[in-house]
């Protein structure tokens, strides 16, 4: 993945998360690359990218984390993962991706994003297969907050 892409995603996910959680402490774990199929913790919000590049951004967290974050963002305790909670998590994914894409636009990379899709369930796995059945390499940005851990999983590649 082009190094120019990395920082906008790391920076905006960190900043947006900190902001929506009311300025709590957000710690960034070590970034790493992965190209194998990986389990999803329970709730995954996915935003697709298309244009000069192709790829996707996936926000992965446990159900508890998702509920905590949704509760915090809405300013009320949500007892279950209902429509409001789902919409909130989708919006969070949208916020972060959109801001990152805006930043990349300023750097001269043009691409669009799809509306977020949300997946909830147990024992889910994200396949590592790309369009041509090759393994996609993803950058993992772990973000640790007092509400739980979110993993931002970015896989972008240039069209060749």
């Amino acid at each position: 993945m082009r190094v120019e892409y990395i920082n906008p995603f790391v920076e905006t996910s960190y900043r947006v998360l900190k902001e929506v959680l009311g300025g709590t402490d957000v710690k960034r774990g070590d970034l790493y690359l992965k190209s194998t199929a990986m389990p999803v913790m329970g709730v995954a919000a996915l935003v697709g990218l298309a244009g000069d590049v192709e790829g996707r951004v996936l926000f992965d967290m446990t159900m508890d984390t998702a509920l905590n974050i949704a509760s915090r963002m809405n300013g009320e305790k949500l007892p279950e993962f209902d429509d409001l909670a789902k919409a909130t998590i989708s919006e969070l994914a949208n916020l972060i991706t959109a801001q990152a894409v805006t930043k990349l636009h300023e750097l001269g990379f043009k691409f669009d994003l799809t509306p977020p899709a949300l997946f909830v369930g147990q024992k889910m796995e994200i396949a590592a297969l790309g369009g041509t059945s090759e393994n996609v390499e993803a950058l993992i940005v772990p973000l640790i907050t007092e509400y739980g851990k979110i993993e931002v999983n970015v896989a972008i590649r240039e069209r060749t």
Partner: protein
Amino acid sequence: MEAENMIAESQQVTATEEDSQYKKDSITVIDFKMVTFSLSGKDYAIDIMNVKEIAKAGRFTYVPNTLPFVLGVYNLRGDIIPILDLRLFFNITVPEHTDNKLENLLILSVGEQTFGVVVDKIDKVVGVQKSKIQPPHPLFGDINIKYIYGVVEAYKRLYILLDIAKIFNSRVAGEDKNRKLVKQVFTQDSISSAVAQIAAKLPEQARGSESDAAVVNPQAAQKNAAAVNKASEQELKFIAESLKNYRKFSVTPLNEEWARSRFASWKEERGGGNTQLQNENDADLYLKTFWSSCSGTWWTKELADAVFKLLPDNTAKQITVWNPGCGKGPETYSLACIMQRRYPGSKIRIYAQDTDLLSVSNAPLLSVPQDIAGGWLSSYLSKKANGEYTFTQEIKDSIMFEYHDCMNTNALPVIDLIFARDLLSLLDEKGQNAVIGDFGEKMKGNGTVIIGENEKLPSSVGFVENAVGTLRAYSKK
């Protein structure tokens, strides 16, 4: 419906007439015959030894859930054979046809299997001289070049000779041996004998020091030497293990030659009994002689000129370079400058990749230290307002730095030059093989691979060495 056999004989008569004409033009020994045909107006050919017959047929029996280019099966006089459409296989547009129209079929036999392939038009049988067949040139589009055996000219037309064995992915034993187009520098035998020589030399050296003491009893000396040999083999194994632990350096056939000769000099440096690597410092000391000149840092003028000389002529509009393991980037920039000088008319595109996030993130903004900026790089530099030297926009634009692990899938276009000095040795053996495989897959037929000065690609992977000075370069067989 029974296939209507169109025996190539009538066509061959005309072909032989032309053949004799052709023979007069230039004295040609015809030792290779091929059946020619066209796909969307372009001329292709297949070795006649693979062609069983020519037929016209249609209305193939569709088989569900097969690959898109499989049209179905067909009953050829009692044998059920699969029918493939070469145009679909190569992503060439298929002309529309009515249901009843018969297709031109080439019945091929590859190994023990028989296939039918559908082509646009079957032309004739053409005889050529085998040595006139040239390796595939990457300019020929439409078809992935790995399926092309070569290109040959006959009757002022260029025929693209398809590699049927590759297309049908079958291993036809024995036949491959005759298929080498370019003369090999090393044959398998010469390599193994060279290795054997080296292997033989090493124990001799080990024996040399020992035999002085034990000269009285030759039998004992021999026994001793064997024991010493075994012991040092063991020591070398331990060292290899430590190198892997401390510095992720894998001793494999790729660098074994170096590792062995280094072991001999290491023993001299350290003296007996103290050869093991205790910590990372020891590992670094051991590896000191491994690194290529200017590895990971700015190139000297000598190295730059050597690389310049090594680069082959290339008139392509865009020249693509793959530089895995670029680290902080000085080598990549040096290479970019040399590429710019070597191919002024072409657009250079360098894919520089590393797994060290910090190094590679800073690489696009790298500035050149004062003492280097005065040297050969000076004409590619511009001075910023704060007095720092950076590369010109043209150089910067030619490089794309990526955070990428080359052991994962490499999504790259076809490559002219692969520059990977001292990288492969830092991957484990499986990774090395995968990456070397990718080298072959991604590189154009006329491309070049440059690896570390103390590295050596195994002869079995389809590359031939053409070293210039200390630089180790390889091209495709």
